[in-house]
């Protein structure tokens, strides 16, 4: 008996649809469970006070640490990543060096986060002597998200129509003037969107700064390097409170609260990017 291909199709499409929905289940589960146990933990004290030894008190230094880390990472990764993208899109020719750079970018993208953690510690903290500081953390995270920034910027720059460049050059502008005035302004939304999404992911990473962030601090950082630059970070604090499970954690729901605050922060960081990108898709003027 031959099965009618149309029935096969209906069946397959139905299965694919259900499977796609299955993907949504875990996301909802994560959100719901964090909300359920985490909300009870969050209050003003939690957000503004320093932690006590048994994970009581608040998580303020961790919140501040993550925010400072994010700022530092943007400051370092955006210019360098954008510069590299401009080089690849506008200046480089198809030679061996360009291929090597491309392989470098792919390689960086594939390095496991914990390997970044070991590298960041042995290079920035020890070898360069920055200590377990914000600078060391920001540099490590910047290196890690560099491929994301470069790729997003390249795509945005390549999407700018070629005739913009031709017109600018034919009016006597130099190559850099053309890039600065006729190309970058029209690639900016794409560049920022990609970078912010990369930063959002960096904000949630534990392993790259596992050996750089401090597990527990009462004070907040006073400088960028050295002992005064020591900082806490939300993902790392979540990890270390998890390790306290079974021991005398003051409120066993604390980790859920930390998780909730962390996800909220990541959401707040990435939301502007998503909005900009949706606006960009509507508004394209060429």
């Amino acid at each position, binding site marked *: 008996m031959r099965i009618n*291909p*149309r029935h096969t199709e209906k069946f*397959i*499409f139905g299965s*694919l*649809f259900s*499977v*796609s929905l*299955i*993907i949504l289940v*875990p*996301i909802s589960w*994560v959100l719901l*469970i964090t909300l359920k146990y985490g909300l009870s933990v969050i209050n003003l004290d939690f957000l503004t006070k320093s932690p006590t030894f048994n994970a009581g008190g608040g998580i303020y230094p961790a919140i501040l640490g993550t925010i400072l880390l994010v700022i530092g990472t943007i400051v370092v990764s955006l210019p360098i*990543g954008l510069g*590299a993208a*401009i*080089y*690849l899109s506008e*200046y*480089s020719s198809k030679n061996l060096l360009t291929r090597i*750079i491309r392989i*470098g970018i*792919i*390689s*960086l*993208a*594939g*390095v*496991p*986060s*914990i*390997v970044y*953690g*070991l590298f960041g510690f*042995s*290079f920035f903290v020890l*070898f360069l002597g920055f200590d377990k500081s914000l600078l060391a953390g920001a540099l490590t995270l910047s290196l890690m998200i560099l491929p994301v920034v470069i790729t997003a910027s390249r795509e945005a720059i390549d999407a700018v129509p070629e005739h913009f460049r031709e017109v600018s050059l034919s009016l006597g502008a130099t*190559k*850099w003037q053309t890039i600065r005035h006729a190309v970058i302004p029209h690639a900016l939304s794409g560049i920022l969107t990609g970078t912010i999404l990369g930063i*959002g*992911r960096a*904000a*949630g990473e*534990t*392993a790259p700064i*596992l*050996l750089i962030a401090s597990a527990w601090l009462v004070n907040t950082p006073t400088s960028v390097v050295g002992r005064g630059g020591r900082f806490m970070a939300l*993902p790392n604090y*979540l*990890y270390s409170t*998890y390790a306290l*499970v079974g021991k005398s954690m003051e409120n066993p729901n604390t*980790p859920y609260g930390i*998780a909730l605050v*962390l*996800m909220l922060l*990541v959401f707040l960081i*990435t939301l502007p990017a*998503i909005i900009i990108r949706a606006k960009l898709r509507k508004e394209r003027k060429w």
Partner: protein
Amino acid sequence: MNLKQIREFIIEKAIFLCGLVSIIGIILIFVFLIKEGGSFFLKESLRDFLLGIHWYPTSTPAKFGILPLILGSLLVTGAAISIAVPLGVAGAIFIAEIAKGSLKEFLKSSVELIQAIPSVVLGFLGAKALGGYVMDWFNLSSGLTAFTAALLLAFMALPTIISVMEDAITAVPKRYRESALAMGSTKWQAIYRVVLPAAASGMAAAIMLGIGRAIGETMVVAMASGNAAIIPGFPSGILGPVKTLTATIATETAEASGRHIQSLFAIAIALFLITLGVNVSADFLVHKKKVK
């Protein structure tokens, strides 16, 4: 040269330097891994390291065999990929070929949303909540197993797999589908017989990237896989604890010293090389398709 030309020259050199940063970065990483981890091999043989079945770094005498860790990583990654690939293929086909308009946008955004969930949060929820379910379902003494970790890893690898596959499927030229439909096949037949084979190398790349992601993941396995450096039995080992290469580094570095630290850097070298190989091959597959 006037001022304007000097400025232009300096800017161009700065841009060139930025381009070099990625090469400098990857070389630095490799150099520093070798610097710390290379000295491990002065006293240990590569064979004992890779094939040794005992990982007792803190005993006397210490043993640094990473075979259990390699097997742990393979087991967790293999299980994760077996779950993620069918789901990913289904999701990618549905999003790329069947879903339309706002449903498509919604699904794409949801998949992206998965990537925004920090791995430590997943690891924590996995260990506490999911671990509890696993413990109950299978009547185990602990929910921290390879299986638990694999479920979480599958979820984490899903966005990578789906988006790369979706790109590969969408990149297949319209006329392939149109010719199939013009010859009388149903939409599904067109997809199955024409589009998917044409997207094959892109889909293979997606799987490889997913594997790379899973092997390199740290926090989820550090928190949910049980962290026991044993050789997993087959097939029951999946419901027992394992320890992966990444989790080993994450959990042991803080208090390690001397040869132990060196051995952890040696593991990092191994990880670095494995993920490098996987990602470069995946990129090659993606570009091989584009050249066509």
